[in-house]
């Protein structure tokens, strides 16, 4: 089953056919979403009504294009806002975590490491509801005591950001810690021998070394936040991020404007993914 061991041609071709089928299976749903963004019909389904760009640029109902669909455009803005904050917070905490787990030794380190990993095995819906409950418990408690309602602990964007941050931080920590582990600490010591303080050494030597991982983790967390659905669903208030807005439309049965949004999302993700791959390759 490796190139150096002969196999029957039948097996070889059958195997190759299987792998090709697998990739068709992977590509099919994405391809149809993209192609039907150009279908001149009110429904994202057959029959094919000819090619059109209306689902992007048309400015009136019933064929409202994405660039004129204020509701969807606003939800893209909201998702963007959420993703930027989640990325900044997650990267900040993850960098600190990476230094803690890679550079420090203390009692209970292993226990904390396991605890740090648990968000990965908590289903997103549960993480969402637990934060919803806890936020409300605190807000109710404070309101009963002081009569003051802490609005940001009620469903809404601050809670969405908190919920996403709670699990995306774990992923960022893993990425950054993996890179920091490979760092040769004698470089930092060299900087300090040359007169740098510890903070200066970390800022001028270690952080630049971490840059590819920081960019990679930043891209991953931005995309995970932008595309998150389960946790967001439980914490969302009146401002709907894109995935929630799309979900509502999908349930009602929507025009191919959703295909147009999806295509833009795919292009956006692909660009970000490409940037992160290029950065890793150049600085790796």
């Amino acid at each position, binding site marked *: 089953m490796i190139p150096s061991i002969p196999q029957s041609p039948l097996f070889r071709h059958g195997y190759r056919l299987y792998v090709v089928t697998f*990739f068709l299976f992977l590509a099919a*749903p994405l391809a*149809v979403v993209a192609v039907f963004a150009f279908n001149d019909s009110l429904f994202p389904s057959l029959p094919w009504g000819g090619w059109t760009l209306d689902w992007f640029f048309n400015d009136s109902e019933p064929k409202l294009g994405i660039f004129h669909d204020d509701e969807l455009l606003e939800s893209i803005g909201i998702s963007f806002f959420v993703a930027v904050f989640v990325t900044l917070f997650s990267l900040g905490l993850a960098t*600190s975590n990476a230094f803690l787990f890679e550079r420090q030794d203390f009692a209970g380190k292993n226990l904390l490491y396991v605890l740090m990993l648990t968000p990965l095995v908590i289903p997103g819906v549960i993480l969402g509801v637990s934060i919803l*409950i806890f936020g409300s418990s605190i807000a109710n408690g404070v309101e009963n005591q002081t009569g003051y309602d802490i609005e940001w602990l009620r469903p809404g964007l601050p809670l969405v950001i908190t919920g996403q941050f*709670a699990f995306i931080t774990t992923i960022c920590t893993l990425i950054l810690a993996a890179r920091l582990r490979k760092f040769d600490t004698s470089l930092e010591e060299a900087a300090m021998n040359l007169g740098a303080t510890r903070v200066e050494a970390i800022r001028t030597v270690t952080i630049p070394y971490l840059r590819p991982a920081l960019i990679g983790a930043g891209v991953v967390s931005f995309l995970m936040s932008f*595309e998150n659905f389960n946790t967001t669903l439980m914490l969302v208030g009146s401002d709907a991020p894109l995935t929630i807005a799309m979900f509502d439309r999908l349930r009602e049965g929507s025009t191919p404007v959703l295909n147009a949004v999806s295509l833009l999302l795919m292009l956006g*993700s692909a660009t970000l993914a490409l940037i992160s791959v290029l950065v890793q390759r150049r600085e790796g």
Partner: protein
Amino acid sequence: MSRPALRLGLWLLLTPLLLWLVLLILLPHVDMLLISLRQRTGPGQYAFSLGNYLAFFDEPLYWRTFVRTATMSVLATALTLLIAFPVSYYIAKLMRGRAKSLLFLMCLIPFWVSELVRTYGWMILLRESGLVSGLLQWLGLVDRPVEMLYNDVAVMVGLIYTAMLFMVVPLITTLDSLDDAQIEAGYDLGGNGWNVLWEVVVPHAMPGIVSGCIVVFMLTLGNYLTPVLIGGKDSLWFTEQIFTQFITRFNWEQGSAFGILLLVLSSFMVWAGLRLSRQSFTRVMSR
């Protein structure tokens, strides 16, 4: 550096971590457990009670949905492994150089696209006026449109698709580290393809298999979009029950009990998976 300075550094790094874990992970779940163990006795008045858990066992709809979600998730995990293993082996062991990295990247692409978009793609493919139905008619296999959405098979396809990446990546990573010489040695010692697969390849890939299965099971169990959008009227998923209790019925006590039950089930499966394969949680999750 002096000891007090070291300790200060430690605490500076430790505090944010502890705040995050305690405030956003630990306490919310403890709170959920406490709320699941109480019942409303009057306006703003609560008493300790196991009623929410009893309701789960009393009401067939609840526990049947639970059992259904668990069995479908196990099945989806097994199928994902079966489908992904040959592909991962092909990429890791039969491909070389550029083609290998290219195929690996191609496996990652669907991950970069929102789950919602992927599910939407399956809806376009499988619905009555969709592509698969159209293709079957064109081929003359059926004479009128067929509805392939809103049944368990469609849900299964969607679940496997969504989870595929999380199986393929750990499998490729572990299989890649298997030395060809070990496989050759297996053959030299008189084994056939089957023996080598079971006695050399699979044992070596075990860490990847376990971490893939755990992640896929978790994701499937906690999936909400696929069953809601692709599933039919009676293909209920347990996460839907949780959503209904919290958001539609505003019965947080019952919803919390459901949440705890789902958490117990998933933790148990993770524990059992690690136990059976003798893997450590830290190693499996850090992949």
